[in-house]
Each structure stands twice: as structure tokens, then as C-alpha cells.
């Protein structure tokens, strides 16, 4: 990885990097999209967020990059907390988080290269460095050949890989991946997981929401099960039984 060519933030202690305290989220139409969530994620953790459609996974992730603020309760991320954070600080926070959005959110009329380079440009890095890192990342996700195409010309699977590259660009404190394998086939999905794992080994915390039980079923990571806006028995057991998954999905 390009980790070696860049400054790594010192991998200090094992403090709770992300902390949810009695967090509730009400959307206009949907009260209780999240209900009284308590949660702690530690630096360096690899965490999986599981749960059926509409259970609030994306909502929980949006709270972390402060795309929404909690209706009640407190979200603390690194040195920022949701109760008193200015717009400027939100920008800073976001620059330290890499997000793979469920709907990618690439800028359609920009080239693949520019999309991936954007977080680095925002950060104000120098041109040569940006080019070097961006090309390395595109190579990593196998999209170097499409670097000069506008993002609008990509297939969905290709977009997903570009989105992953963008999230990795700044070598962030934490990577939030919302369903990063939804449009990928088995092997591509495995590649993404491996990529995230490699990042994790370099000290980046990972929080990944996914439906792909097949993919994660043999991983040893902490799992958080959501259902109906609540966390069901936070569980760090290694295996997840088949019956367990089916129970979670009975709503659909």
C-alpha cells in the first residue's frame, strides 16, 4: 500500500475513538430511525454492522461523519463531539474520515482520477504527490485504465471501486464503508475486504455495513446487529449461526 510513502498518524492508545451515548434519530417521516443507541468503537477496530434493510445502518454511519446530528444523545468522534461542533470543524472531521457511500456519490462529470484526487486536493497536497497517490490507488482497485473517463461512464461495480479508492485516498483515521460490496461479485467483494483488512493492519479503524453474510461469515471481527433502529445484543463472538441471520431478516 501507499501507507509507507505517507505520514502515519501515531497509533497511540486504545481509547474509544467513536462513542455513541443514548443516541436517538428522528427523521421527519420516520421517528425513531435510531433509538437510544450506546456504542463504543476503539482505535484500530474492524467492526461489521449487520441488519436488515431500513434497520438504521446508514443512519448510524451518517452520524459519524456528522451528515446528520442526533435528535437526542451524544456522538463523539476522536476529538469532536456532536453537541458543539462548528461547520468548520465538521469539515476537519470529515477530512479525517474516509467514507464509501452506499450510493457512491461520485461527481459524475469529473474524471475518475479527479474524483479520487479530490480529497487530497481539498487537503491542499502538492500536485506530484496527488498524482502519485491517486495512481497507486487506482491501480490497487484495478481502475487505472479508466482514469481519464468521466465517472458517469462507469458500470456500477466500477463506480464502487472508484468510491473505495477515494475513501482510502487520505489515509484516514477511520474508514466507514456502507455496503461496499453491494454491486460487486464474489471475487471483487473478497478483494475489497482484503483491501480494508490491509488498511486495518496499518492502524486504520474500519466500520463496514454489509448484507453479504457469505463474505464475512468466516471473519473474526466484531459484529453489531441492528434491527428496527436498535442494537440487538452487541456481540463479538466469532461465528454467526445461520438461524441467527434468518432471525434478523424476518421483517423483510
Amino acid at each position, binding site marked *: 500500500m501507499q501507507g509507507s510513502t505517507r505520514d502515519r498518524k501515531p497509533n497511540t492508545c486504545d481509547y474509544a475513538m467513536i462513542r455513541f451515548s443514548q443516541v436517538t434519530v428522528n427523521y421527519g417521516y420516520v421517528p425513531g430511525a435510531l433509538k437510544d443507541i450506546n456504542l463504543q468503537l476503539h482505535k484500530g477496530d474492524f467492526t461489521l454492522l449487520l441488519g436488515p434493510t431500513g434497520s438504521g445502518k446508514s443512519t448510524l454511519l451518517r452520524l459519524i461523519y456528522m451528515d446528520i446530528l442526533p435528535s437526542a444523545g451524544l456522538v463523539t468522534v476522536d476529538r469532536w463531539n456532536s453537541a458543539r461542533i462548528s461547520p468548520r470543524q465538521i469539515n476537519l472531521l470529515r477530512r479525517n474520515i474516509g467514507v464509501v457511500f452506499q450510493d457512491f456519490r461520485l461527481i459524475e462529470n469529473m474524471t475518475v482520477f479527479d474524483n479520487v484526487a479530490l480529497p487530497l486536493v*481539498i487537503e491542499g497536497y502538492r500536485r506530484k504527490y496527488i498524482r502519485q497517490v491517486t495512481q497507486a490507488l487506482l491501480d490497487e482497485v484495478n481502475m487505472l485504465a479508466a482514469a481519464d473517463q468521466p465517472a458517469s461512464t462507469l458500470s456500477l461495480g466500477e463506480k464502487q471501486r472508484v468510491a473505495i479508492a477515494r475513501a482510502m485516498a487520505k489515509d484516514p483515521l477511520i474508514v466507514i464503508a456502507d455496503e461496499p460490496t453491494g454491486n460487486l461479485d464474489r471475487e471483487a467483494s473478497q478483494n475489497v475486504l482484503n483491501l480494508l483488512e490491509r488498511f486495518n493492519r496499518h492502524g486504520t479503524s474500519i466500520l463496514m455495513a454489509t448484507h453479504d453474510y457469505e463474505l464475512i461469515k468466516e471473519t473474526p471481527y466484531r459484529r453489531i446487529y441492528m434491527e428496527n433502529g436498535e442494537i440487538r445484543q452487541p456481540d463479538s463472538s466469532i461465528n454467526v449461526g445461520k438461524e441467527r441471520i434468518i432471525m434478523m431478516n424476518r421483517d423483510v
Partner: protein
Amino acid sequence: MKLRFVLRQTLNNLWRERTPATASVLTIGIALVILISLFEVSISLYRNLNDLKQNMVIEVYLEASRTENDAAGISAQLSDYGTIERIRVISKEAAAEIFEKEFGENIYDILKENPLPVMIEVRLQSEYNHPDYLALFKKQVEALPGVDEVHYRHVLVEKLESLTQAVLISGLAVLIVLVFAMNLLIRNTIKLSVYARRDQIAIMKILGAGNLFIRLPYILEGAFEGLFGGMMAAAGLILAHKFIADSFEAIRFSLSVYKMLWIVTISVGILIGFFVSAAAVGHFVQKIYAKK
């Protein structure tokens, strides 16, 4: 790298959305043409009116028995007042000529003799060209021996005074309305242009881009549109000036007027584009934040 990126994006945006951008350019161009020609007309109107006022003539009629020699003596006396710009004696014959010019009739034809008195034409210095002083002047001069009557178009002076004011005020009113309308239209164009790219803005925000970084491309876009609009307006105005100069022989513009037109029109265009879009973008980018 940041600035280069922003600039590249500005140009991209301009090219990709050339239709609305062209409309924006035209809006700015048309508004500038109206604005600047209105300004010019006001200025030249004001100047003309002022000239007219400055050149107001006071007519001092001598008694019928007085000759041009008497007139010279009285002229000398008047000059001593120190408020006079120019003074001229008009003989009986000259007066008859003026009469013919003004009324279209030869006074000798009508009356078989010239009953017109010798007259002194006086022009006051501009700072004394004021109703109050004129009244005083009339009183003083009429008291002089040999002077029959002092005439000046005091009604005209007052009317000119108020007309000049009216022109300036109504010109200003039109200007304000126009600036308001132009601001509205440019804002609207830019606002919609931002609106059309709201996805892009929302994404940049979510990546933690700062306000300036997000807004700069739109602000620069506005400035570029102002530049092009200004160039268009300048070209139009200069053509119009050339046309007017060709059509009316009395009107000539100096080269410096043309230079000023280029410089003023284009820089006003850029400034308008810059500030209007800066305001519009700020307002609107905030809104996108609130929505998402």
C-alpha cells in the same frame, strides 16, 4: 494545486453549461449597455443643462436716447462689479438683426424705422448665476443712470434649475431600479446554475471541502461571465458611439472616451459578476447544506 483545480473546474463548468452561461453573459451585457448609456446620457444632459444655465444672458436696455458711447461707459461700470464673465454692447442695427432672426420679420418692414434701443448683453460668472444674485444685480443696474430696464429670463433660470434636478433624480431612480433588476436576474441565473450542480456541491461538502473551495469556481464563473458580458457591452457601446458620431456631425468622441468605455465597462462587468455571484453562491450553498 488547489487553485489550478478550481480554475480548471471553472472553465469546465463554463464550457459544459455554455447555454445558461451565455444567457448570463447576455444579461450582464444588456444591463451594462443600458446602465452605462443611461449614465452617459445623464452626464451629458447635466452638462448641457449646466452649459445652458452658465450661458444665460442678461439684457440691459438703455434709454432710447442713449448711444453706443454711453453703452461703453456703462459697460465699464458693470465690469467693476467683478461678478461678470463677459460683456457685449449691441447696437440698434445689431438688435434689428436679432429681431429679424427671432421673429422672422424685418422691423423696418413693419414700422419703417428702428425703435429698438441700444442694449448691453451680460454674462455672469457661474458662481453668481443664481436667482438671488440675479435679482440684486437687476436692481443695482436699473438704478444706474441711462439704463432703462434689465431683462433676464428668471423663469427660465428657475425652470432650468429644477429641470436639471429632475433629470438627475429620475436618472438615479431608473438607475436604482435597473441595478436592482440586473442584480435579481444575474443572481437568479447563478443561483440556478449552482442549483443544477447541487449534487456535486453536496458531495464536496461531505468530503469536508471548505466554503471557499466549494464556492470559488462559481464566483470565478460569475467573474468570467461578467468579463465576457462587459466585453460585449463595451463593443456594443463603442459601435453605438461610432454610429452616433457618424450620424450627427455635431457630436464627436475623443479617443480617451473609447478607452474609458472599454476599461470601465469591462471592469464594472467583472465586479458585478464577481460580487453578485459571490453573494448568490453563499446564500445558495448554505441552502443545499440545510437540505441534505
